[in-house]
């Protein structure tokens, strides 16, 4: 007490902020390295249009990765993000095309459906004590099937809803700065990321997200209704997947009911590359965004270089390992 030295005073947030900042910078460094590498390898890579294409390619996976980040910080995992996205797209299709409801209601329905499904997963995990892996794997299959059932295994087109495809493809920014036609989908990703960041950093929900992932039992022993908060986090993640559903439906101007399987691994990969720990308790949205960008740049760059498909896969795998290794090694060095 009195003797408690002043060692701690010197580095107030030592552990977190410093290495945290470093870490983000490092993932960022990998990203920059990739960008530079591809620019040198192909003169066509570094064009505004291609940069915008990369950003747009990030948008859907980025939104899903943000959702996955929330769940992963609680110490869980969400395998259902991909098929939930599809399910929400189908719900939007049913609302807008089959029922002919107004655009806003369709969008709201998709997000609400996402939140509801997230709440289901959350209930399975929190109340029924089913391990998140199984609960969300089950949801992944259920939603995959339901998307097909509801849509009648047919794509639902949004041709009757003018403006729907503009949600993702239009460019509000481009209208103001014509030289920078960044599509709305990218804008939405950033808004989602900022909101999620804010929730994580500044609200009670965010505080409990980290607390649950850090030591759930301790939180429970402190008298917090951990189940209720966990369900809310899963619901929030589900709602974000709903936004992802809107984004993809808008981009394809249709709800493709068979899509979405495999997207979960990509999203989780982005999260982990971004430095979020799968054991929970720590993670950042910024890191996840960078992780998603790394994946998108990698995929795009290899394609622009016309690397043979089979080698694209090999190189992607190797670079994912290397990027995380560089991160690890340097994090270790800086303490």
């Amino acid at each position, binding site marked *: 007490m009195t003797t408690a030295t002043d060692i701690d005073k010197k580095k107030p947030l030592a552990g977190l902020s410093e290495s945290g900042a470093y870490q983000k910078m490092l993932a960022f460094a990998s990203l920059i390295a990739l960008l530079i590498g591809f620019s040198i390898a*192909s003169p*066509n*890579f570094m*064009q505004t*249009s*291609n940069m915008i*294409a990369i950003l*747009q*390619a990030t948008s*859907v996976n980025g939104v899903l990765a943000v959702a996955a980040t929330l769940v992963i910080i609680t110490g869980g995992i969400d395998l259902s993000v991909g098929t939930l996205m599809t399910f929400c797209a189908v719900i939007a299709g049913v609302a807008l095309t089959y029922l002919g409801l107004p655009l806003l209601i369709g969008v709201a329905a998709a997000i609400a459906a996402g939140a509801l499904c997230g709440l289901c997963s959350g209930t399975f995990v929190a109340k029924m004590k089913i391990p998140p892996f199984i609960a969300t794997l089950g949801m992944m299959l259920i939603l995959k099937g339901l998307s*097909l059932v509801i849509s009648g*295994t*047919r*794509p639902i*087109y949004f*041709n009757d809803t003018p403006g729907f495809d503009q949600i993702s*493809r239009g460019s509000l920014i481009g209208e103001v700065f014509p030289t920078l036609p960044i*599509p709305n989908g990218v804008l939405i990703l950033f808004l989602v990321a900022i909101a999620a960041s804010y929730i994580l950093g500044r609200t009670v929900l965010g505080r409990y997200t980290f607390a649950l992932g850090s030591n759930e039992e301790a939180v429970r022993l402190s008298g917090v209704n951990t189940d209720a908060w966990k369900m809310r986090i899963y619901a929030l993640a589900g709602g974000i997947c709903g936004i992802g559903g809107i984004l*993809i439906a808008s*981009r*394809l*101007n*249709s709800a*493709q*009911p*068979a*899509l979405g*399987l495999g997207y979960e691994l990509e999203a989780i990969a982005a999260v982990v590359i971004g430095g979020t720990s799968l054991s929970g308790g720590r993670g950042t949205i910024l890191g996840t965004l960078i992780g998603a960008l790394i994946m998108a740049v990698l*995929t*795009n760059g290899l*394609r*622009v*270089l*016309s690397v043979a*498909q*089979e080698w694209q896969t090999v190189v992607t795998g190797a670079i994912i390992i290397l990027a995380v290794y560089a991160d690890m090694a340097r994090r270790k060095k800086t303490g």
Partner: protein
Amino acid sequence: AAEDIYIPLVSKGFQHQFWQAVKSGAEQAADEYGVTITFEGPDNETMVDRQIDMLAAALANNPKAIGFAALDSQAAIPLLKQANDKGIPIIAFDSGVDSDIPVSTATTDNLAAASLAADKMADMIGGKGKVAVVAHDQTSRTGIDRRDGFVNRMAEKYPDIEVVTVQYGQGDHLKSTEVTKAILTANPDLNGIFGTNEGSAIGVVNGVQELGTEGLIIIGYDSGKAQKDAIKSGLMAGAITQNPVGIGYETVKAAVAAMKGEDVPALIDTGFYYYDATNIDDPKISAVLYD
């Protein structure tokens, strides 16, 4: 009773619109002939062993005949032999089996169809320039045949046309979109792109739309509402269609005949067509298109 006649169709896929069209043709025939069918296929065309598990489950229900679209031409032979021993006739559809067990095969010649796409493409870009292929799969029979049919034809017949790249989007609309954009980034002077199935073709259209590229010749494969719309609006020059409904229909029809011991032709070519804005409303064409 007629309901007792059970004919399972084990397909290569299920969720794609193409397979749904095959399924609807099969159901149509099932109604006509008063038989019960089931239609199943794995999630993607790499899952050879899953398809065999499906075939095994289908055999458990004592079918009177089986329709089978083999993902691998050899892998299922033991099970097919088992069916043969039980006197269950097998009708192959979509692509063949390396064996004389199937009494009939209802299929499209994908190689020839893709060559036709190459001819049309060459014609439209004036016999010279650069083209690319967005294919749906690197290893499946249909993926290989359509890619090779197109690429080989170009190499053989059109020396001034260069196929600059073949890339794969798994038939996923979104992935194919990104693939297309990357191809266009790398090859700004591209003249045409061939998309080898519905998802790939839509992806190409999407990618071109998002990049705002103009003057590109796009040829697609199969149909679906989006592709038909793209052809009508001129975004897409045209597409190859098979006759999926016909494949399904003919498969069940042949199965019923074989079951009754009637003669069935060893090969039922259900044909393919090239369609574009000019003939899309032709009754003959619109009959083989699906939404």
